[in-house]
């Protein structure tokens, strides 16, 4: 997934990757990543929980505001105030 993110960035599309394995993201280094503390199969938390899903998405979108000097960026979900 991070390899697709890199290609999109090279074509002028900014990306945020939600990631489940922090140590893999640290190795692969997508430009912007939001690490979420959920198990595989549950990337946005819980089924039929729109509030939690929206909360994860808002945290991901906030990374688009970060400066280039932060690259590669990995932020833990819930670690920063919205």
């Amino acid at each position, binding site marked *: *997934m*991070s*390899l*697709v*993110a*890199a*290609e*999109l*960035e*090279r*074509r*002028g*599309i*900014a*990306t*945020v*990757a*939600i*990631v*489940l*394995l*922090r*140590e*893999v993201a640290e*190795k*692969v*280094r*997508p*430009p912007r990543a939001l*690490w*979420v*503390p*959920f*198990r*595989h*199969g*549950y*990337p*946005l*938390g*819980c*089924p*039929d929980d*729109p509030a939690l*899903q*929206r909360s994860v*998405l*808002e945290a*991901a*979108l906030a990374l*688009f*505001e970060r400066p*280039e000097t932060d*690259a*590669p960026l990995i932020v833990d979900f819930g670690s920063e105030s919205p």
Partner: protein
Amino acid sequence: MGSFDEFDLATRMFLRAWRWRRIDPVPWTVPRRPVARARLALVSTAGFVAPGQPGFDEKVRGGDPSWRVIPAGVDPRSLREFHRSESFDHSGLAADPNLGFPLDRLREMAAAGVIGEVAPRHLSFMGSITAPGRLVRDSAPGAARLLVEDQVDLALLVPV
């Protein structure tokens, strides 16, 4: 939480020994416009397919590098998940595909002005590709061209 400990011993050993491709240099595009005015596309690696589309092929050695275009008008509840991995619980995605393909959430956020608009087309891959050569050489550039054509500003990649 997401960790290697979720997997069986063989998978853990594979993941720890795997030579992950390091992105270097890290490309960085400054968003052309603020999120509240941007066109946003989803990119999923859950192997979702829309009604009428062929499934991903779990028999492809090294992983199926193909991708599907998911039209923005699709009902997320009609998406079928084709990820081949037996290493995670698929029931959450079956109950609510928004868990991995949050199209309904994006529509709500566009209506609320949080994002500018939902892109007309989104992308679906099947993750767990152990031989990513074709993905890097063919699939990713082709998929990127499609989003460029649609004048997408931002892409959100959702794993499984």
